[in-house]
């Protein structure tokens, strides 16, 4: 008897039928803009003068712009700061939760650990702007109480500290985000290993360094990769706190793109910066993935 199927097509065609429409749509939505991004970088495209091919003029303009080096430097410090602070806290929190295992309050603690991630990043910027405010900010008040300083710090009035302010607001959201990845990796570690190590006389520090860290290595690297990638291409917290100021102290490359695109309406030059971000992130990701694969 012939088997009844609603389509008389092969399994391979059934697979194509299920998957190709969505993939085509999303590739159109991604690949076409990527191509158009490259094309735009060779065009004069500013909604005022007619569109024209200008060769490498946008590239030479951007590469000779002092703001590019400044924005890259700012972005580098920002990315490093956010990732570093998040990593230290996320490692500590994950290790604590991992040690607790299924003990009392572990479910509650796990929820508390990721709660700040509920706050939209742009709102985190606003909250931290308020906490750090020199006239009414709670953090400033605590700072005066705890440290010998008697004057509140106007963190966004000073170009060296302003960057620290935006980093704090972003790191606050990235700590729980990174904790999710690192904790998931640590949860995969067999608890018996710790007991075996304890019998051999391992101290808590050696257990952390020789069991926990190496066995959750890929989760940690992945957390670093994705957090660094997100902070390299962000605008949210900076937009709501300083918009790149004071002066250009927090001039992240994302703000640089938005300035060229929305204020100057120069899509050609914005596209060049967009390509620079793309190249930086690709190189960084490739390096991190290579590190993950190396054993």
């Amino acid at each position, binding site marked *: 008897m012939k088997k009844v199927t609603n389509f008389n097509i092969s399994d391979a065609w059934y697979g194509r039928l299920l998957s190709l*429409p969505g993939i085509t749509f999303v590739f159109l939505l991604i690949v076409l803009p990527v191509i158009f991004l490259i094309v735009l970088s060779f065009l004069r495209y500013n909604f005022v003068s007619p569109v024209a091919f200008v060769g490498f003029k946008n590239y030479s303009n951007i590469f000779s712009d002092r703001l590019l080096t400044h924005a890259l430097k700012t972005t580098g410090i920002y990315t490093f700061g956010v990732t570093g602070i998040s990593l230290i806290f996320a490692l500590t929190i994950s290790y604590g939760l991992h040690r607790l295992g299924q003990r009392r309050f572990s479910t509650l603690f796990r929820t508390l650990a990721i709660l700040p991630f509920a706050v939209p990043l*742009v709102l985190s910027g*606003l909250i931290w702007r308020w906490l750090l405010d020199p006239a009414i900010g709670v953090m400033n008040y605590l700072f005066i109480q705890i440290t010998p300083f008697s004057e509140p710090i106007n963190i966004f009035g000073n170009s060296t500290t302003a960057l620290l302010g935006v980093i704090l607001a972003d790191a606050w959201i990235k700590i729980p*985000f990174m904790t999710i990845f690192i904790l998931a990796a640590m949860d995969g570690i067999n608890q018996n290993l710790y007991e075996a190590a304890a019998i051999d006389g391992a101290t*808590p520090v050696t257990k952390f360094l020789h069991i926990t860290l190496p066995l959750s290595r890929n989760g940690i690297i992945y957390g670093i990769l994705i957090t660094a990638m997100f902070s390299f291409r962000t*605008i949210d917290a900076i937009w709501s706190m300083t918009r790149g100021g004071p002066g250009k102290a927090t001039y992240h490359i994302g703000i640089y793109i*938005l300035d060229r695109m929305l204020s100057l309406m120069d899509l050609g030059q914005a*596209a060049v910066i967009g390509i620079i971000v793309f190249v930086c992130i690709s190189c960084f990701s490739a390096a991190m993935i290579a590190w993950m694969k190396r054993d």
Partner: protein
Amino acid sequence: MSATKRVSGTFNRILESYLTVYIGLGVIFVVLLSPLVLMLFTAFKTPAETEMWPPTIVPLDVDFEAFADVIFNSKIPKTIVNSLVISLSTVAIVVVAATFTAYGLSRYKYRGSRVLSYSLLATRIIPPISLTIPFFAIFAWLGLVNKKLTLIILNVYLNYPIVTWLLIDAFNRFPNQLIDSARIDGATRNQTFFFVVLPLTVTAIAAGAIITFLFTWNEFLYALTFTQTEAAMPLTVGIFEFVGDEVVEWTRLCAVGVFASLPSIVFFIFAQRYVVQGLTAGAIKE
């Protein structure tokens, strides 16, 4: 020698103790969660109280004016509706499309399907901020600026690859024997998919739906670039109604903040497993 040994022994015993872990985590959580608590408290303060020095923590008088004002006298309710429409539409499209795509890629392999799966994952490297520029040109040309549809399309682009990858992983782990025995019992491929596979992978699908909702609800870059008026503006941009160049209305802002964080907090409390599953899919083993 024995003295130093005793000191390090005590030190190790303290490190080893669970009490230390509880205290350490407790201290970190107080620091980590205090901004959230302060935001909640400040939403119930009077505007005058937010100007006081030293700043108050708990409201002196509980005042609902900020909430009332945000709900009845601002464009915030409209932007919340916009955020809901955009997020829920994105979730619906992403979940349906990604489920079909992932099942096709995972179960009915064809030439190139492996490459397609990996290239979907690779699209995550493309920075959304770089694509803002071509999108800006394209959507201006199509006249699709300041429309909710634009944000739905863009959020689908942001989430579809992640969710597809999550579901490929879930379908790959689905036991083959179940599918084979259903087919032997005479079920068609479609019946097997809808009545055998889907009910058993529903947790992964829920995880995909939840992370899509969270990412879309919190999305800011495209919302800022593509909306100008409250017709399409989502909450993440609408928040700036209370942020002036000089003065920020902190009580109202905190009230909006409570609304903006609420859906995610609810998910974290009641569906934490799904959030974690959704975010870590494809992260550990790749």
